[in-house]
């Protein structure tokens, strides 16, 4: 059944709530965001898009790394790494950055946006200077991950409800606090990823220290960094002859 639209409906000038029947909730995600460049959206013309030369080279170098560089049509394998470049450069996947990347890759901006919105780490809205991802999955939850997220929210003023559902910015907009699924460091539970480095096991009081250190530009909790940890079983030399008399690596 095709939806019935009033004959005087003017999509160009309609307000978001006019797109849905009265009384139904409006999902903002469907009614806000970047306005497409055209319909159907076109691949940006290099003549129209200003791209810093170093960025163009960086993107091209990534495209060239993948075997689909030789394929017909637009090679797309570089999409995720290129979006990472855009995010690193502009702080998040900005609409302008996406258009620049799309122009070099010769795909539509909508294509890159569809990729960016699929992945949790690629952000299509501002995410602040620093990112704190607090794991609230099974092992961390058992060891106090929820309370740790509470502590980060309390310290930064980030909204706790939103932090638990995709992330929230601190009151000053500088720190993104986000509850996260298992980060692959359950041995550190409860743990957090701070600017892409892992720390744990953390006490609630560490949240305050970490945020203060981030703001002061200091090294974050060096004694709780994953990099500094040894193996859980410690230094153990095997006496098993199958191991000691074997060949190959690790001898």
């Amino acid at each position, binding site marked *: 059944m095709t939806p019935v639209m009033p004959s005087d409906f003017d999509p160009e000038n309609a307000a978001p709530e006019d797109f849905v029947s009265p009384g139904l909730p409006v999902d903002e995600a469907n009614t806000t965001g970047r306005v497409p460049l055209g319909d159907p959206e076109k691949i940006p013309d290099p003549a129209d898009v200003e791209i810093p030369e170093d960025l163009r080279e960086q993107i091209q170098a990534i495209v060239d790394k993948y075997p689909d560089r030789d394929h017909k049509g637009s090679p797309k394998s570089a999409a995720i790494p290129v979006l990472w470049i855009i995010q690193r450069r502009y702080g998040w996947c900005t609409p302008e950055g996406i258009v620049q990347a799309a122009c070099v890759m010769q795909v539509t901006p909508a294509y890159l946006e569809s990729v960016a919105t699929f992945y949790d780490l690629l952000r299509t809205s501002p995410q602040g200077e620093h990112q704190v991802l607090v794991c609230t999955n099974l092992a961390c939850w*058992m060891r106090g991950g929820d309370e740790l997220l509470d502590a980060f929210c309390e310290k930064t003023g980030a909204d706790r409800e939103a932090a638990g559902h995709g992330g929230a910015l601190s009151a000053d907009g500088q720190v993104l606090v986000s509850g996260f699924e298992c980060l*692959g460091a359950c041995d550190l539970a409860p743990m957090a990823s701070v600017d892409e480095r892992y720390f744990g096991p953390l006490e609630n009081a560490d949240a305050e220290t970490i945020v203060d250190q981030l703001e002061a530009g200091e090294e974050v909790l060096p004694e709780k960094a994953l990099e500094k940890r040894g193996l859980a079983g410690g230094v153990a030399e095997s006496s098993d002859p*199958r191991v000691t008399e*074997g060949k190959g690596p690790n001898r």
Partner: protein
Amino acid sequence: MIEETRVLLRHAEDPKMATISGYESYGGYETLKKALKEIDPEWIVGELEESGLRGRGGAGFSMGKKVSFLPHTDDAKYLCCNADESEPGAFKDRELMQRNPHQLIEGMIISSFAAGIGHAFIFIRGEYDDQADVLDRAVEEAYGAGYLGKNILGSGFDLELVVHRGAGAYICGEETALLDALEGKRGNPRLKPPFPAVQGLYGGPTLINNVETLSNVSHIVANGADWFKGFGTEQSPGTKVVSVSGCVKRPGNYEVELGVTLRDLIFGLAGGPLDGREIKAFYPGGSSSPVLTPAELDLPYSFEAMAEAGSMLGSGSIIVADDSVSIPRMAKRTSKFYRHESCGKCTPCREGTSWTDKMLERVVNGEATPMDLDIIASVQNNIMGNCLCVLGDAMAMPVSSMVKKFRDEFEEAIASEASAAWSASVMESAGAQSGRYVPDSQQPGPGGESPEVIRRKRLAGREIPSAMNGGGY
């Protein structure tokens, strides 16, 4: 007292191991040199098959068999190392890549040589930025030493290796979703068959293996299949890096022979439960595996014993819950994860994970009725085996095991005071005579309403929380 059997993690605590010179000082890349010079690729494939090495990423399929499925044609073939490691409870690949990246790279070069592969990738989850940096450096060193690139060590064999960072999506660990993500798309699984060995990356034959599986390869090629079979059990040969976490004293990665008991792993190596606590349940193979109870602690940790116990070894990740953990809440955490990570392509998985999560929320909030437990169980049955990939099953299996094995705890949550008042009012308005669930066929209500009608009446009588109104995620 049990000891670790460190083959893959041997000398791993030496920071030198992460560099090419350190790795070579411990005998690294010797096997590659020998293989390229004097070993027949066919022999390598045969040895891998003979060794019985089973995939360490979850499914436990024979690695050698998978290699032998690749067609012997001149088509461009691909190797993808699965380093997505996003299953809750798993963190072994992180340790292997961080401490000994060259062991993985050497294994990948030898596997590619054996299968005639010219392009290899390591698909690493985006969160592992530190480990991806380690790999980037190691790959650069390997190119510098002539172990990667054109005409490797003068053998005429070419191999390109790219480290590809993901960007945060559990589903990309599923092998066909991984291929889509590598091709620069949203990570949605593909319909199988065709299997990746026939038609994978860019439509070419593709071998996909886990980090730990590939890390074993140079050891097997150096020592032979019989040496490898000397470790572990008949059906689960070799050693396994096991991630133990949750409510234990010494969480971490421990490398043991397959077939040691769960008790040795959880008590002997990981130190057992925290002081004054007792173990209540544990996932033996990551959050996707049906939970086991302390009665099963003396089982050997092997693919076959875990399957026989109705669970699975999966990625080899044990998450321990002690008596302070509420099982209904643990089930809710589990469903929340899968609900968030479902790619949304299949209805049973997308709706099933979402509704299971909502129903479990009602259970833990004391807003459920006893009939909800049966509905939860039936939803799980309708997910299993009905989807493109097994993400849906990965929630259905642990959740149904919890409802089955700890039903009294779920009933207790439901029978709490708030909950009892709630269900009494519901049943009254639905026309039932008592607070207990009466099967549909015996519903005494006017017109014998179905559970669905009852549910709707229930929803009509209360405000719908915003989380149910548009996803909430």
